[in-house]
Structure formats: C-alpha cells, structure tokens
C-alpha cells in the first residue's frame, strides 16, 4: 500500500494518485482475507511524516495479526528504532541505502538482517536494468543486479523489487526472473508462491 498523509493512495508509478481509503481498515481487510504480509510505503513529503508514520505503524500493529513492513523516507538507525518499537516487523529502505550503502550494515548490526528490507525500483533502459529513485523518476548509475548483490552482501534480509516499466504483468515477470537469477530473493519467491495460491492477492496490489 502506498501511503500519503495518512491515507492509502493508488496511482501508476506514483502519478495521478487517488484516495483508496484508510490504511488501517484496509490492512484489517487484507489480513482477514488471507494476505501473508503487508507492506506500507509512505510517499508523503511533509515535516510531520515521521510522527504520522509511527502512529500508523502503531495502529496497524494493534489491528493485524500478520507481519508487515514499513518504508518511506527512513534514513537513520533512530528512524528504524522508532518504527520497530511501535510494532513494525520489518522496515524497508530505498534511496537512503543507495546514497549511503553503509546504512544497510549499520541497521543489520543493530536490528538483525531479519527486519531489514531493501526496496529497489528499477527500469529497463536499452536492455540494461538500472536502479531508479523517487518512484522511478530519478535514474542512478547503479545496475540492478550489481546493486542487489551488494545489498545482499551487506546483510539485508529481503529485497522488495519493483519494476517501473510496468507494475502489473511485466512487474511480476521480472520478479520471477530475478528470483531465479539470484536465489537469495526470499521475498520474491514468497510472493509468487502465495499469489498462485490466492489469486485474490493480485487485486490488492
């Protein structure tokens, strides 16, 4: 779920966002319907973001009985500490890891690899998968597979991969390919397996 100012939003590649409801209510529904895990990515850019995200985590933890990951603008050990204390099972970092890869090692050393997820957004440009930031808007010099391997070596427990070329069919296809290339991608395998079993899961993405 993409979150903006405390509400769930939907759009394609973070453009043309529209309101999709209260994240806590949706989380309860998804949990009840048999989802395995939930991921909340806060894409708002307000100064109160840290506080509202921590509050959201607290309320989600209160209501759902499945593991969930939270991400969006997390850039320090302190940020992660607050979110985990409020009840998140895992945190996801993206831009801050690209800018400062050592952050992955620091977080893993403090909290353990089991709760550190690195999100990677990538776009295929002239046949080469390149890492992008800010919802695919900002290209980087990093190649997807090299970055993924580095992320693993630095100790991240899971990778949350999004293909920015297409969030639907092609996205899933890419996840599968990457999953087969780098066998470490627990999350990728996990999602695919469950999606086959529970077709309804697709609808929620």
């Amino acid at each position, binding site marked *: 779920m993409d979150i903006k100012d405390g509400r769930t939003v939907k759009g394609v590649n973070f453009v043309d966002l529209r309101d999709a409801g209260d994240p806590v209510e949706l989380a309860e529904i998804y949990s009840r319907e*048999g989802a395995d895990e939930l991921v909340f990515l806060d894409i708002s850019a307000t100064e109160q973001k840290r506080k509202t995200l921590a509050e959201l985590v607290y309320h989600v933890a209160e209501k759902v*009985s*499945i593991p969930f990951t939270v991400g969006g603008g997390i850039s320090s050990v302190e940020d992660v500490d607050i979110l*985990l204390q409020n*009840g998140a*099972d895992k945190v996801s970092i993206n831009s801050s890891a690209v800018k400062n890869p050592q952050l992955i090692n620091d977080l893993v050393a403090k909290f*353990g*690899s089991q709760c550190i997820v690195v999100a990677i957004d990538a776009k295929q440009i002239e046949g080469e998968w390149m890492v992008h930031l800010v919802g695919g808007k900002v290209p980087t010099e990093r190649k997807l597979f090299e970055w993924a391997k580095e992320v693993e070596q630095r100790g991240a427990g899971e990778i949350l991969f999004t293909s920015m070329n297409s969030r639907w069919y092609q996205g899933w296809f890419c996840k599968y390919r990457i999953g087969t290339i780098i066998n470490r991608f*627990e999350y990728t395998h996990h999602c695919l397996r469950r999606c086959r079993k529970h077709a309804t899961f697709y609808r929620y993405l």
Partner: protein
Amino acid sequence: MKIVIINYGAGNIQSIKFAIKRLGYEAVLSNKADEIRKADKVIFPGVGEASSAIKKLRESGLDDLIPNLKQPVLGICLGMQLMCNRSEEGNTVGLGIFDVDVLRFSKSVKVPQIGWNQISDLKSDLFKGIQEESHIYLVHSFYAPLCSQTIAISNYGLKYSAGLKHDNFYGTQFHPEKSSDIGERILSNFLEL
C-alpha cells in the same frame, strides 16, 4: 486473569500485547519478580541474539525466577530457545527447562528462515482445534532439534521442534502473534490452559 509479558528489553513485544488485546484480555509488561510470580499466565518473548538476551535476564535476576514458575509459561521464538539447555548462538548457557541444545541451521538452507511454514505432529492442548499442516510465521536462524519434549514439528532442510513442552512450560519457535487466525487460536489456547 492476570497476564504478564516479561519485559527484559529484547524484541518487539508490542505485537504480543496487541494480539492478547484482540483476544479480549489485557497483558502487562513487567520485569518485576513479584508481579511475574503472581501472574496467572506468563509470556516470555524474545527477538535478537541469545547471549546478550540471557545477559539481560541475568542482570535482572530473571534467570533464577523463570525456571521456578508454577503457572503456564509460554516462550516465543528466542524466548523458547533461551529455555533450552544451551544455544550455539554466542555459545550461550540457557535456562535448562527444555532438555535440548539449540543449533544453527546448516548452510544448505537460506538463513534466517523468514516467512510462513507448516506445523505437524501436534500434541498438547496448546494446539487444540489446530489442524495438522497449518501455516505459522517464523523468523529464526537457530533451531531446537526434535526431542522427547517436542509437541510440534516443522521442516526447514530438516525436521525440528516448532513447539516444546515440559510440565507447565511451553515454547513455540514461531510467532503466534504474527500467525494470523491460527496464531490467535494458539495464543487463546494458552490463555485458557
């Protein structure tokens, strides 16, 4: 009913508190011997590294208290592992409640195991109403091998103890508070023991 979650500074205990609240009970977090001793049910959680967790227990004298409790006690994840004789993690001496040594998963499987797996060969009232092969959620790098106190088995490269029981002491390697309706039923079973 008075439910105490032992709070010794190890791991995400908020989720356990919330899970108990969803079942209609209130739990208190405590590291005070008196309060723990008087509780009807005690939950002993834990996420993190074994040797530093046991050190925290020793500092607060809880290592002597826990093995002598008479009411039902449920150790979850690292909590369960600390109730065993020893752990390979940090070469830790445990509380010696469960007569088994905790080992590290071999390199042939991805470590840690993060995600959903199944439990089978279910014994004891802790699993009343739970079907064989039910899905539960786990996060761990170390495991307790099968032994005479095993009450649930899971398989990750090899069969290991997903649940242990000795007298009034119960342990689950998985997280009931994160295992959806199955986990809630198991927690509810524990609270109704």
